């Protein structure tokens, strides 16, 4: 096993204890790897001196499939990438194709898209928080987080009939009109939600065990985060104030006021703080959006058969995990010539090796958790 081709063995550091290094395999069936991630660790005692992520166990060839489907047919597939934030995936894809077509969804559709996408961001962060805390040993937050997430999933179910792989949006707008009580439901969820976030904070933020397990763990400086192409909460926790919703507004984000939370140290604790604050900001966006959902059509003029003129487009959105980019090339037919999906989880995971070196085995789960990866998206 030891001489199996392990490139990280090039990282030569003599062991402090003078003992032999150990290669430890973690996953792909380890519960804290959130799916089927396999990590090979090189250990000196309990210290990690090198690591390698082995991915691809969930590879389904989504990009290849895209080339054999029409633009419309491919839309449901994107829900299966980041399956805890399907709505965001759908938004990115629909907007990318709309850009390719030169079309735009009507304003009413875009506002409803914002509402659902922000709810999805909250749901995704809640799921992250619950499982991340669970990995580190705090069982309780999971129950509270799933309780709130359930409320959001119920709203999705009422809206489009599905809870997870929603396929909520259509290219050019929406298929479904907002149901009658959508605003009320969103309000009922959002109004008390900041108190809920306070509750999570009371469980964790000043909890000595939590602080001990997360502060100073997995530090990524701003320069490193940029070098590694990190995005979303990961790069913001490193102090880079950058959010695509502000930098290059899409959907209807230019109409709403919200802050971009950032961290200072780029450690696991800061990423936790940033995500919690993002949930509060998403709540504010939702509350602003339901104030005024413009009347009008929900579907733009895109035609039944989509044939974008030849050319290409790269469109990125701020998904809960970071920059989700779609690079679509059209050859003028009804099927995309190429769809490249830039998954935030994959790219963020790349910094894992950088973050883990020098930490202990127990910190591996903390760092995998803090990156908020979803393997469906990493492997596509």
């Amino acid at each position, binding site marked *: 096993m030891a001489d199996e081709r392990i*490139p990280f063995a090039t990282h030569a550091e003599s062991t402090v204890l003078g003992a032999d290094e150990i290669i430890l395999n973690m996953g792909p069936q380890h519960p804290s790897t959130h799916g089927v991630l396999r990590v090979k660790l090189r250990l000196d005692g309990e210290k990690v001196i090198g690591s390698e992520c082995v991915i*691809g166990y969930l590879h389904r060839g989504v990009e290849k499939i895209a080339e054999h489907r029409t633009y419309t047919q491919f839309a449901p597939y994107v829900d299966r990438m980041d399956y805890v934030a399907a709505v965001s995936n759908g938004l990115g894809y629909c907007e990318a194709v709309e850009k390719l077509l030169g079309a735009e969804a009507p304003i009413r559709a875009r506002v409803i898209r914002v509402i659902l996408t922000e709810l999805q961001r909250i749901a995704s962060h809640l799921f992250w928080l619950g499982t991340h805390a669970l990995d580190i040993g705090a069982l309780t937050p999971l129950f509270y987080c799933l309780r709130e997430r359930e409320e959001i999933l119920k709203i999705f179910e009422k809206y489009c009939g599905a809870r997870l792989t929603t396929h909520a949006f259509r290219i050019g707008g929406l298929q479904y009109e907002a149901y009658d009580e959508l605003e009320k439901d969103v309000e009922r969820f959002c109004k008390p939600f900041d108190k809920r976030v306070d509750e999570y904070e009371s469980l964790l933020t000043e909890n000595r065990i939590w602080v001990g397990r997360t502060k100073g763990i997995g530090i990524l400086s701003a320069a490193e985060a940029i070098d590694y192409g990190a995005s979303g909460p990961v790069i913001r926790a490193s102090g880079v104030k950058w959010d695509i919703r502000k930098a290059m507004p899409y959907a209807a984000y230019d109409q709403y006021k919200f802050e971009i939370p950032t961290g200072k140290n780029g450690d696991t604790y800061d990423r936790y703080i940033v995500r919690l604050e993002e949930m509060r900001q998403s709540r504010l966006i939702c509350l602003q959006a339901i104030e005024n959902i413009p009347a009008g059509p929900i579907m*733009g003029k*895109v035609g039944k058969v989509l044939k974008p003129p030849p050319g290409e487009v790269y469109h990125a959105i701020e998904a809960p995990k970071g920059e989700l*980019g779609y690079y679509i090339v059209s050859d003028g037919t009804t099927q995309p010539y190429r769809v490249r999906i830039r998954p935030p989880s994959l790219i963020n995971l790349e910094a894992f090796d950088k973050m883990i070196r020098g930490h202990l085995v127990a910190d591996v789960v903390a760092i995998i958790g803090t990156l908020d990866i979803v393997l469906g998206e990493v492997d596509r």
Partner: protein
Amino acid sequence: MANDPEEKQPSANSPSEPSGAKPPAAGGEPVSKPPAPPAASAAKPPAAAAPPRPPAPPKEGPVALDNDLVKRYKEKFGPGILEAWVDRKQAILVVARELLGEIALYSRDEEKFDWLSDLTALDWPKREKRFDVVLNMYSFEKNERLRLKAQANADERVPSVQGIWATANWMEREVYDMFGIVFEGHPDLRRILLPDEWQGYPLRKDYDILTQDTAWVRENLGIESGQ
């Protein structure tokens, strides 16, 4: 401006010409086609009536680009910049393959495109140089994106940009995995998503969607077919 080779682009027509005279030929064939993509808007009054797109002018399809940015690149690299396009308001530079590393470094340091958001490839099997390696860069300072493209044959090596952006490491591995493009100077070019022993490059156009490495499947999964 040898725009022809590049323009093999999307199969048929050559969008080549700037100006609003977008190739209506693009949508070409279908007189019958209903799609409302505004490309057709000239012909279709109703399209204009709809709420979406009033600004009909030159849109879809690549158009030659010649702004300050392109001028600076051309000044610096001369013939290294083969073509410059703008498509859907996004700037694209087609650069000489051998200079890709230098141009990427210049982009990062001088033009401040310091964040590599994506690196991928395209396959145009009928073209003389079948692959495009595509870099999507972003500049925090300017809040702009820029796309670089370099063309390569199946047997030509592309300079790795892994030393410029650490993030390119896995992206180049994925491109190698899916297209078989070899990156010169990459420290660890192995397959990333598929098994190491897999034969074939799935995202090439001549790799059918039902194709698989039957021998691998038989040996490792113990079944006749993964389908």
